[in-house]
């Protein structure tokens, strides 16, 4: 597992992909930071994170698109799958390397906090809120990474994995609106007045909102970790099934 983590992580930086992802993240978060916080000397970095939330849905597929797709295309998966390594070690190694790159991107908020502390006199940073917001975007990204890693295991083409991942990202991002629209449609059609009970609990963004408000609730953390476990499991199954094809 360690070997796969190391190789994958460094391969982000021997190719341009890692730099592109980090550059995009810095560029957009820097833009929001400048507009929202720095320019108006407003101390709420969580609002920067909130805006970056929408970027994350589309950036994460870029991180994982090549994880398995490229291995299959170059036939390097033959080395992995015939080595004395268990499937879950391969999946976990790749997942953690993607998570590490994503984690590096998200360190930027603490850097912004420092910039404000140093350059703006008499400003106070709400560290508690910043940390819970950071945890929110990390967990949301962790869940998205697992979904996109799964997509990468389904295809030989990075671009297909990325496009499907972004499409899914769009649906997940608009999940609340989509479910709400369907519900009101049903309610009008049958003149009922159903309310959401379970479906809204599955929303990735709803759980994030709790964290951004500064409420660290174990239920939200467990929710995101369940996504990760589910899709890692599915990825392992996909790799295993290839053997029997």
């Amino acid at each position, binding site marked *: 597992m360690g070997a796969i983590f190391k190789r994958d992580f460094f*391969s982000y930086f021997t190719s341009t992909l890692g730099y592109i992802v980090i550059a995009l993240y810095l560029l957009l978060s820097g833009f929001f930071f400048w507009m929202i916080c720095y320019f108006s000397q407003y101390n709420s970095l969580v609002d920067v994170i909130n805006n970056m939330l929408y970027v994350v849905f589309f950036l994460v597929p870029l991180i994982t698109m090549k994880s398995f797709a490229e291995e299959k295309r170059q036939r*390097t998966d*033959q*080395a992995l799958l015939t080595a*004395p390594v268990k499937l879950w070690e391969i999946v976990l190694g790749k997942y953690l390397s993607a998570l590490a790159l994503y984690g590096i991107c998200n360190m930027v908020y603490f850097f912004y906090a420092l910039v404000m502390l140093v350059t703006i006199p008499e400003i106070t940073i709400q560290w508690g809120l910043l940390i819970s917001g950071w945890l929110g975007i990390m967990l949301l990204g962790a869940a998205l990474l697992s979904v996109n890693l799964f997509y990468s295991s389904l295809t030989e083409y990075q671009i297909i994995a990325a496009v499907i991942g972004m499409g899914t990202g769009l649906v997940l991002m608009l999940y609340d609106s989509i479910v709400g629209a369907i519900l009101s449609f049903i309610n009008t059609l049958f003149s009922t007045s159903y309310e959401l009970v379970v479906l809204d609990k599955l929303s990735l963004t709803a759980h994030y909102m709790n964290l951004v408000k500064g409420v660290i609730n174990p239920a939200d953390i467990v929710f995101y970790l369940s996504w990760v476990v589910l899709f890692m499991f599915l990825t392992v199954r996909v790799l295993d099934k290839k053997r029997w094809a």
Partner: protein
Amino acid sequence: MVEVKNLRKNYGDVAAVKDISFTAEKGEILGFLGPNGAGKTTTMNIITGYLSATSGTVTIDGYDILDNPMEARARIGYLPELPPLYLDMTVEKYLQFIYELKKVKLPKEAHLKEVMELVKIYDIKDRVIRNLSKGYKQRVGFAQALVGNPPVLILDEPTVGLDPRQIIEMRSIIKSLGKKHTVIFSSHVLSEVSAICDRIVVISNGVITADAKTEEISNITEDTKKLSLTVDGNSATVLSILNDLDGVVKARRIAQESDSVYSYTVDYKKTVDIRRAVFRTLAKADCPILEMKDAGMSLEESFLQLTGSTKVERTKKKGGAN
């Protein structure tokens, strides 16, 4: 060391491998010979655990590849048809990765150096794999299989795409490895297999059509032997004399060499040696024999016979090119 029993692999309705059983002992180089599409690669992928068989078992050193995959795989070095190279890494970094991936316990620096020197890539260890020539890439792939010193080496067409000098080098490396390892090595080139291997397993359309020591392989197929003759004399007379001999299946005239000199081939049953009789009868008829040669069946002919006539044209070309 490697034991393959009743292997079968279906892809949908098509059986790529129908029923394959063989064993390879320690210190043996086993040549896996067959035309393209015969099922060689599928079989090797199953032995290494990359694919699972529909039915049948593979055991490596007593460990079943499905029941004890970790122990079994740790004993195999595999060079697939396309070497599994990460193009963005340098040779040394790549081999270090493989070393860690395989969880090898040998001293790292020394072991990797030894492997790189064996396949002669030590002087290019800092180059990025993407920029290497095909021959070097193949060697790096080979080095990857050797990392960890596995007792079993599975090499899928390791010499394809190499230039003649590299082929010779590759063969001599394989031959030297065969002393300590069990090597299973696939090829569709006959001369190669007969030059390197102790034993040949011929596979055709997913079934084994021959499994024998290299020097015996031509004997299995023939029930007749061939004699080639050059005789001075009337060809009709000579032919009738030859065809009347005991044990002769058929005599044919091949070519006219000069006015009254013709060359012939005689197919005869391998249970009788007709050479003396040929000499005496032709001498009696005053037809001097200018040349007589036992033309035992060549490996090439055995191969064609074993793999079925439909592939004759294709394999013939390939055999000729090498």
